[in-house]
């Protein structure tokens, strides 16, 4: 397969960026999008040019590193997969493909297609954890968790923190990410002691980072490689209201 690629090139955070056009020739339909970029980079290196910088790590859809905006859709046209599991067969032969970095004020650009997503880490640091004192593990059936809660918590915990929700949102809002993190701990017994403080601190950190507001476009849910539902945002709204009305833990 052959493609015409328009890729965002930018030397560094302070430099001017622009779209550069490349031809990708003889690409196997079974290559992943990242492997296609590897082939292109090898050609660039052979020609003595600077390779295209992009993030990737596990390449099996669980680390959330590979973050590319492909034709205006985070992770490309296929639903429910990350860029590393987007295969070239989902594109048409000869197609023009635009590749851009995530765009958000809270995600400053580092180089080419790489952005700094530390803002999401700082939201986690603000409350996306449970504090557990060491000691003997409780008996297996001593702590009861309703099956529906366990499954919903698992659905929320599937978030890999890639930031596709922010990239897809017309407002660059991180609401789905924060909602998933808040919801998965709020649904489980271990999350209860810090439940109120967690949601207050995480929402406030999210606001400080300069993400946009949520106006229910639901683009986040469609772009999420883990297909996390916007129902968790409804849960975040409930959790935050309850936490602000009840300040007994402050």
């Amino acid at each position, binding site marked *: 397969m052959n493609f015409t690629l*328009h890729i*965002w090139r930018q030397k560094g955070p302070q430099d001017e960026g622009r*779209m550069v056009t490349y031809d990708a020739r003889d690409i196997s339909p079974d290559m992943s999008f990242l492997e296609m970029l590897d082939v292109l980079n090898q050609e660039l290196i052979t020609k003595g040019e600077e390779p295209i910088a992009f993030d990737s790590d596990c390449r099996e859809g669980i680390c959330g590193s590979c973050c590319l*905006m492909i*034709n*205006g*859709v985070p992770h490309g046209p296929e639903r429910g997969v990350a860029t590393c599991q987007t295969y070239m067969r989902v594109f048409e032969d000869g197609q023009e493909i*635009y590749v*851009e970095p995530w*765009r*958000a*004020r*809270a995600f400053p650009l580092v180089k080419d297609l790489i952005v700094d997503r530390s803002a999401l880490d700082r939201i986690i640091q603000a409350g996306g954890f449970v504090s557990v004192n060491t000691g003997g593990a409780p008996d297996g059936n001593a702590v009861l968790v309703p099956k529906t809660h366990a499954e919903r918590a698992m659905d929320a915990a599937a978030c890999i923190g890639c930031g596709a929700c922010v990239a*897809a949102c*017309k*407002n*660059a*809002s991180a*609401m789905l990410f924060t909602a998933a993190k808040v919801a998965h701990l709020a649904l489980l017994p271990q999350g209860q002691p810090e439940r109120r403080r967690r949601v*207050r601190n995480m*929402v*406030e950190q*999210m*606001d400080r980072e*300069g*993400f*946009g*507001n*949520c*106006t*229910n*476009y*639901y*683009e986040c*849910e*469609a*772009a999420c490689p883990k297909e996390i*539902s*916007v*129902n*968790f*945002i*409804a*849960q*975040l*709204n*409930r959790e*935050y*209201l309850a936490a*602000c*009305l009840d*300040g007994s833990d*402050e």
Partner: protein
Amino acid sequence: MNRLSRLVFSSVGSKYVMALTGLGLMIFVIAHMSGNLLIYFGKDALNAYAHGLMEHPVLLWSARTGLLAIFLIHLVFALRTWQENESARPIHYVHENTIQASWASRHMMLTGVVILLFVLYHLLHFTFGIFDPEHFKYVLEPKEGDVAGMVIAGFQQPLISASYILAQIFLGLHLWHGGSSWLQHLGWNGRGYDAVVNHVGAVVALSVVVGNCSIPLVILMGWIY
């Protein structure tokens, strides 16, 4: 108090403000339409309803003041969140795309501004009689103000009817998204009412557009005169 002000002005709290004020405005739109539809029961029915409102000036002006406050809060929070959203993405994508966001959801600011302009025009037209005073004379006539007569005289002019109908379409688009969005904002999604949450906006929007547009259309056709 500090916690409550944080609630109101945070990104999540703003949703509650927009949802509750939007709900208030939506209830007003439905009530206003229900009153207007009385014209189908005859001019006297509409006039009796209008006189009923006028006979309780304290109630009427409290309601109007409350409505104005809700309207202004909705407006100020919309502008505030819009400005924040614009600054959250200073560099736009070269290749813009939309996966599933509806046209209505993406143009709330546009439809909102059109509604604002329409409300100003509508107030100057039928409430304060500054625009087109010859229609308003029906209301000013001694003793028996003829609201129905004013409405009929106004809508017999095709341009005025057309502007009202166009405005209702914008209002319908705003309600299409907002009419469901407020339930998500208040956290009602994912609790077993998803079908209601997802469709109530469309139902309200279609009802309001059909109900409100029917009046100028029927008058233009000459079925009510």
